[in-house]
């Protein structure tokens, strides 16, 4: 993942963009929970969940290919799940002799089912999270977090973090570039690069000085807040009321999800 994709929000004027952020956040969470609750091998249910996602995505007017491509980010984690192919009890599908030993790998049918179930769950969940951040600005997500009861202080901290990670991130990039610009080789035959400990000390020092500067900055930010009347309690703009379309959407989405889950269990 790279920093250039940091702001994934894609502006458009779609019904999904216009939804109340609280409704979007909760809907996305329920969708991901539904994925987690779907039993192994309930393929029709996964197809239904995928279609649901697709329908919302098309409605949201965001690039499908972009989401699908970015949806692969959890793929490397697949390695962790590979083991279930061999460790779940079931009828053997494939026996692979391991070279240079008398052991064999046995892939079982249930193992394969579990493996693909995990992959599907993970993929659909990531796609839904991506859709959420593509259609909701981060400040709106913060508003939604406040709306669903996350402590104000924590939302405040996350908001400040979001604001200053760009500032400090730039600082890090500058430091790293300054370091790289001086990572030269000495005369031929001379060992370059220093020891691991030395290199680590340099980076540790950079981290430490970044910390000291961040402390200073937090002081200045605090001053800026105080000079505009801050006394310890962040005052937020009023929460807007939920409108009928938002409520209808939330209800409809929940009904569809519950139906899919019940159906998955009856299959």
């Amino acid at each position: 993942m790279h920093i250039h994709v940091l702001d994934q929000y894609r502006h458009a004027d779609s019904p999904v963009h216009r939804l109340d952020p609280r409704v979007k956040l909760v809907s996305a969470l329920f969708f991901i929970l539904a994925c987690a609750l779907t039993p192994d091998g309930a393929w029709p249910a996964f197809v239904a969940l995928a279609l649901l996602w697709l329908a919302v995505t098309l409605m949201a007017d965001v690039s499908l290919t972009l989401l699908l491509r970015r949806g692969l980010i959890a793929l490397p984690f697949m390695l962790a799940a590979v083991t279930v192919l061999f460790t779940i009890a079931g009828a053997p599908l494939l026996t692979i002799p391991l070279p240079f030993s008398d052991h064999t790998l046995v892939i079982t049918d249930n193992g394969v089912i579990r493996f693909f179930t995990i992959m599907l769950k993970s993929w659909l969940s990531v796609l839904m999270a991506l859709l959420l951040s593509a259609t909701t600005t981060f400040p709106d997500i913060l508003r939604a977090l406040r709306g669903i009861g996350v402590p104000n202080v924590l939302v405040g901290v996350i908001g400040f973090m979001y604001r200053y990670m760009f500032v400090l991130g730039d600082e890090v990039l500058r430091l790293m570039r300054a370091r790289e610009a001086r990572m030269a080789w000495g005369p031929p035959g001379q060992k370059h690069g220093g020891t691991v400990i030395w290199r680590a000390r340099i980076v540790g020092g950079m981290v430490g000085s970044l910390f000291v500067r961040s402390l200073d900055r937090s002081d200045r930010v605090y001053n800026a807040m105080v000079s505009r009347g801050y006394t310890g309690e962040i005052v937020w703009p009023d929460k807007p009321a939920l409108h009928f379309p938002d409520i209808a959407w939330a209800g409809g989405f929940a009904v569809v999800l519950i139906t899919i889950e019940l159906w998955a269990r009856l299959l």
Partner: protein
Amino acid sequence: MTEINGDEPVLHVHDLRYAYPDGREALNGVTMHVNHGEKVALVGPNGAGKSTLMLHFNGILKGNAGQVRVDGMDLVKENLGVIRAKVGLVFQNPDDQLFSTTVFEDVAFGPLHMGFSSEEVHHRVHDALEKVGIGDFAPRMPHHLSVGERKRVAMATVLAMGPSILVLDEPTAGLDPRGRRSLINLLRSLDATMLVSTHDMPLVGELFERMIVLDGGQVVADGPTAEIMANPELLEAHGLEAP
């Protein structure tokens, strides 16, 4: 709230001394005042103590010795709320001033803390952004803005609070010629009392009738701009140049 009385200067500083916690003495006995309605420039070389002095007008720093009064009020805890509503302080670095995730939230921060109603807050935010020429910036995120745009938002954050005294730390630094020009016009049009620190000598010559030169934490000159600008020795001695 104390009434503004005719003779009391709006900003009154007497023999102010301040040392940072690390021991660095930034102010060594500053005495100055700014009268009601005056627009005064504060100039001096890097490290002269301009920003340090400005932080005193909002009670953010408290001098180790000496006196600071704003509108006849001492900077004691009970007065700070009133003083902070009167004095709009714009920091030198807009990244310190703009701490919210959207421009709207940032400009609304002051008015919200002053307890205004939701409509009033919206109205003030809109007004302030219009004044600095970026009326359509409300939903944008501060980190997406250019330095000059951030400077303007920083101005808006205090304008939205309707202050009668503006204390601005290098407001034109980083602005393009057009941005600088519109800021100058804005400053000219506001009838608030102003103390503006700057390295922009043409700006001083154009906008301010009076200037104060600070160096080494002390006031080394204070008087009509024309007079001080006509004294090249003085300017040069303190690392300045006439425009």
